[in-house]
């Protein structure tokens, strides 16, 4: 009888032992898979930040808060800073201060305005201009998948995920809810889809873009609602994406931070800070995942070792009637593979079923507004580790087979 057949018969006939072993593997794989995908979800939070620009200008606030809000779409409606400041920077105009005199702003490579003015299906609608497409410092420009950039009033360019999710295309009309802080206003503000942004793999895929003129006109209409927060009326911005030569950043920073109501941060520095902060948690998460997997592997090793130890007499008989050591080792390996496959399949199903519920529980702690969809296949490293652990567990009895003294084993029974 071939080793494969011996393995299938042993696997299918030792029902209780097989069930326990498969269950141990399944629970270990499911728990590790869920924890690992939570870890990947928290990582994805940082991966989806739209960190292509050199610097970010916003109202005075913590750098991390600014970056998460502007580039991650997280947090409350942000504060304003005057549009005139942006225009001055953009025009490279010399600034005049009563006490300091005239100061020439640092030369900028580009400046892109951002003003949030509405919400569409939990996605932000941002007023900007065409410089947005060139707002990535070191990489190629953003491109349009279809249509044109929203330049005229009443137009909107969709992020790729929004278009795909809602099945929208150029020419369609959508209704957005004006948003100037607090709750969105329950009014339907129509916008016509002029284009769809090609996939950026960032938060921009889940954002809608209209013209800065459109944004300002909406804010004007609802100015009384935010008057307390803006002494500049509706001519404001939330953020500006800035690209500047590294050697010019310090002078720009000094100008903005010390002599205006706004603040500028270097995006790369804040992103690193975020990753470092999150990294500690991520490292812990990875440690716990590894721990769970090791515990599960040890349980499997123990179960398999006991299972195969109990077969040592039968193995001695098979060797006595002429089975080679390698045939018996092949039997154990096949059986280990069957156990691993069944356990991993069951574990993957459990992982798939339970992960969404688990994510709902922990979603708030690992990052508000998480849209990252970490699919089941992301758990593949866990499955590979579980397969290796199971096959390693089989090696222990396999080695014992090769060392078994058949004469002593048969006499012992």
């Amino acid at each position: 009888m071939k080793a494969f057949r011996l393995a299938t018969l042993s696997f299918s006939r030792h029902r209780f032992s097989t069930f326990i072993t498969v269950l141990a593997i399944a629970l270990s794989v499911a728990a590790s898979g869920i924890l690992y995908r939570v870890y990947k979800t928290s990582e994805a939070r940082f991966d989806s930040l739209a960190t292509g620009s050199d610097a970010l200008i916003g109202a005075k606030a913590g750098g991390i808060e600014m970056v998460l809000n502007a580039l991650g779409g997280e947090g409350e409606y942000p504060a304003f800073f005057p549009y005139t400041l942006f225009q001055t920077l953009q025009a490279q105009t010399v600034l005049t201060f009563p006490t300091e005199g005239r100061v020439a702003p640092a030369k900028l490579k580009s400046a892109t305005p951002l003003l949030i003015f509405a919400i569409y299906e939990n996605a932000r609608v941002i007023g900007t201009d065409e410089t947005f497409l060139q707002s990535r410092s070191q990489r190629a420009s953003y491109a349009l998948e279809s249509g044109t950039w929203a330049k005229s009033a009443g137009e909107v360019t969709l992020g790729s995920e929004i278009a795909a999710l809602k099945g929208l295309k150029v020419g369609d009309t959508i209704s957005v809810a004006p948003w100037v802080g607090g709750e969105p206003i329950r009014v339907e503000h129509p916008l016509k889809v002029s284009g769809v942004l090609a996939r950026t793999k960032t938060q921009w895929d889940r954002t809608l873009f209209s013209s800065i003129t459109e944004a300002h006109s909406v804010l004007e209409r609802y100015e009384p609602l935010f008057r307390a927060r803006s002494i500049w009326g509706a001519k404001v911005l939330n953020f500006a994406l800035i690209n500047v030569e590294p050697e010019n950043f310090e002078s720009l920073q000094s100008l903005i931070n010390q002599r205006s109501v706004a603040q500028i941060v270097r995006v790369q520095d804040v992103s690193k800070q975020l990753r470092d902060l999150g990294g500690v948690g991520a490292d812990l998460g990875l440690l716990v995942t590894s721990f769970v997997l090791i515990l599960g592997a040890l349980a499997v090793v123990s179960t398999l070792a006991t299972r195969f130890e109990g077969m040592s007499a039968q193995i001695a008989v098979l060797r006595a009637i002429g089975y080679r050591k390698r045939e018996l080792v092949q039997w154990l390996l096949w059986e280990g593979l069957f156990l691993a496959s069944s356990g991993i399949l069951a574990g993957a199903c459990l992982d798939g079923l339970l992960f969404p519920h688990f994510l709902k529980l922990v979603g708030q702690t690992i990052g508000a507004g998480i849209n990252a969809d970490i699919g089941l296949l992301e758990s593949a490293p866990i499955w590979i580790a579980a397969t290796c652990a199971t096959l390693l567990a089989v090696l222990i009895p396999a080695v014992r087979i090769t060392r078994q003294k058949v004469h002593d084993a048969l006499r012992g029974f």
Partner: protein
Amino acid sequence: MTSSRAMNISFENVEVRVGERNESLFSLKSFEIPSGSRLLIRGPSGAGKTTFLHLIAGLLEPARGAVYVDEKDINQLSEDRLAQYRRDHVALVFQKLNLLNHLTATENVRLAKNVSAESADHVLSQVGLSAKASEFVSKLSLGEQQRVAVARVLASSAQIILADEPTSSLDDKNASDVMKLLITASEGKTLIVVSHDQRIESFFSEIRNFKELTQ
């Protein structure tokens, strides 16, 4: 080793040592068991009868001397060749634990080399177990389990049949039935049984005390 004729077995200055202190268990006189012999070896428990059978099956290497089967020293064979020797030329029947409990009677018979399902069912009918061919052996009585072990011997092409206390756990009727089947199975082959069961002595033409074989 050829497979078309019975094989003679001979021992030359064999000594077996066991245990951590490598103490001598027994030393055999040089002697030969001719092919086609039907030999019963008697002796008390612990004398080394099982070890003697294991020497012939190549399951144990002597500390000194050689065991020749068909004029070849079997302990000079490689691990794989030794397994092949057991598979092709030797059939073993133990007192207990002959069979894998999670397999049926047919599947246990098919553990022997190249036995088809039809051949297995045929030999099971020869030992009177055709109705129980699909039963798990754990559900069979001890006597029925021994008959399955004999069926496996019948299904194999072994020229040397070694049986270690095959009837000690059986009642009189079952002991007699199993012995009759073993005798049938060993026609034209070498049958060596070690046992202290006096009930089976009448089945043998040659009976030796184990002590006679040792120095």
